[in-house]
C-alpha cells in the first residue's frame, strides 16, 4: 500500500433513510404528567392524591394511555422496590416534610397549596426520570404503579410484565 500524502476523509457509504422513518412520529414518545391534587378524608386521616397520567408509544408499556391516582406513600413504595430489585441509582423523591406534620403550625402543614405544588413538581420529575430508564422499564413494579388501578403490595416482584388477566 503506497503512502498517501492526504488521508481519505470521504464519508462511509450509508443506506438512505426511509421517508416514513424520517418524518413519522419518533418511537421514543413518553410523557407522564402529575396534576389535579386532591385531598381526601377528614381530620387526622386526610391525605393528598395526585393524578398520574401517562401517554406513550413505547411497546414495552401495555397501555398507550393510562391514568391512575397515587399518593406520596405509593411513590415511596415504588422507590423502595426499585432500589431493592434493580441496579439503578434511583433519583430522589421530594421531601417527606415531617416537620409540616407536627401540630400547632401557622399554616395548613402538608395541605398547604404551595407545598402541594412543590411536591407535585418533584413527583413529576421523579416519575419521568424513572419511567424513561431502560432497566426500570423491565420492572413489574413500575408497570403496576403506572398502569394498574391499585397497587398490590403483596405482588411478586419480577422482571417483565408478569401474569395479567387477559
Amino acid at each position, binding site marked *: *500500500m*503506497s*503512502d498517501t500524502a492526504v*488521508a*481519505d*476523509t*470521504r*464519508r*462511509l457509504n*450509508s*443506506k438512505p*433513510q*426511509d421517508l416514513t*422513518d*424520517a418524518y*413519522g412520529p*419518533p*418511537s*421514543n414518545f*413518553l410523557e407522564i404528567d402529575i396534576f389535579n391534587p386532591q385531598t381526601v378524608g377528614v381530620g387526622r386521616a386526610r391525605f393528598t392524591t395526585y393524578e398520574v397520567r401517562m401517554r406513550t408509544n*413505547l*411497546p*414495552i408499556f401495555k397501555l398507550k394511555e393510562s391514568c391512575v391516582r397515587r399518593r406520596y406513600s405509593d411513590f415511596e413504595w415504588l422507590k423502595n422496590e426499585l432500589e431493592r430489585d434493580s441496579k439503578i441509582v434511583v433519583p430522589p423523591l421530594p421531601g417527606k416534610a415531617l416537620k409540616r406534620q407536627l401540630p400547632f403550625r401557622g399554616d395548613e402543614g402538608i395541605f398547604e397549596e404551595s407545598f402541594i405544588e412543590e411536591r407535585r413538581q418533584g413527583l413529576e420529575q421523579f416519575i*419521568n*426520570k424513572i419511567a*424513561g*430508564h*431502560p432497566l426500570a*422499564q423491565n420492572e413489574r413494579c413500575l408497570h403496576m404503579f403506572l398502569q394498574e388501578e391499585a397497587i398490590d403490595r403483596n405482588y411478586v416482584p419480577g422482571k417483565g410484565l408478569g401474569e395479567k388477566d387477559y
Partner: protein
Amino acid sequence: MRCFGGGAPAVSPGCCPGTGSAQSAGYLGAGREEGVVNRRAAPRPGGALPQRAPPPPVGQAPVAEASALPIELYYDRGNHHEFVSLVKDLARPGEVTQSQAFDFEFTHVEKPYESYTGQNVKLRYFLRATISRRLNDVVKEMDIVVHTLSTYPELNSSIKMEVGIEDCLHIEFEYNKSKYHLKDVIVGKIYFLLVRIKIKHMEIDIIKRETTGTGPNVYHENDTIAKYEIMDGAPVRGESIPIRLFLAGYELTPTMRDINKKFSVRYYLNLVLIDDEERRYFKQQEVVLWRKGDIVRKSMSHQAAIASQRFEGTTPLGEARTPGPLSDGGSRQ
C-alpha cells in the same frame, strides 16, 4: 576528534552527523519535555552520535574521574529499573583548572522502546556525565527522546459492530480502520436501527489506558484525551451520523504492549450517547495507534525510500527483520 586520557574510545573516520538520516533532528517535545530526538528509523553504518560533554566547572577540587553513559531507565512510582546502560570513561583522575572539552562516542546503542512519560511510569533515555570527586560528585543529565517508527500495517480491517439494549436502542457503528497512525483521521459512521430513548447528543472520546505492575498489583490509569461531539439532537431510526476525527490535534503516543514486561499503553474509542435524563450509553472499542516515519531521504529514489521504511526495528537494510507488534504476521524482505 580529540580524546583526552588513555582508554578513550577510538573514533571512526567515516562518522559524521547529519548525512541523510534521522539522528539528532533537533529539539522536539515528546509530551512536554525537551530533548534531542533520536529516531530509530534510520540506522547508520557506525551510527554514532558524537557529542561534547558539558564543560566541567572551573577551579574545583581534584577530579577523580569523568564518565559519560547513555542509560535507558524505567521508573515505576519510585522504583528505577535500568534496562540498558553503557559507560565510557572520559578522563583519568586528575585536576581540572580550566574549561575542557571531552569528546565521546557510543556506537550501536540499543534503543528497543519508545520514550514515554506517563502517570505511573516513565521510560527515558539519557546521557549522564559524572565527575566523581572525593566529597560530592558533579552530575549532569541530558534526555534523549526515542521514537519507534512503523509503516502501514498489511492488514487493517475496519471495525463494524451492531450493539444495543434490547428493545430500547440498537445502533451499528463502523470505523474505517482498526489501526491508525498518529496523524491519521478516524472516518466512520453510526447507523440507528432502533431508537426508543430520547437522545440528547452523542460524542466520541479517545481514552488512554496505562497499565503498570504485574500480578496482584496491577494499576490502570484511564485518561480521556479527547471528547468530540458528533451529534446534537434526537435521531430516529434509519439515520446515519458521520464521524471524522483528526488525531493530529491530540497528544497521543503509539500503542505499547507489555513494554519490557512492565507496562502497557492502549487506546480506546468510546462512543457515548447521552439521553434527556443525563443517562449515558456507551461502547468502548480498542484501536491500535502507531507512529509513522516522516523523514524522506533525498539521496535515495522514492521507491528505495519507501522500501527502507518498511521495517519495524533497528536492523539496518539487508539484515533479517523481525516483525514488530503492529504487523500482522508478514515481514518483508
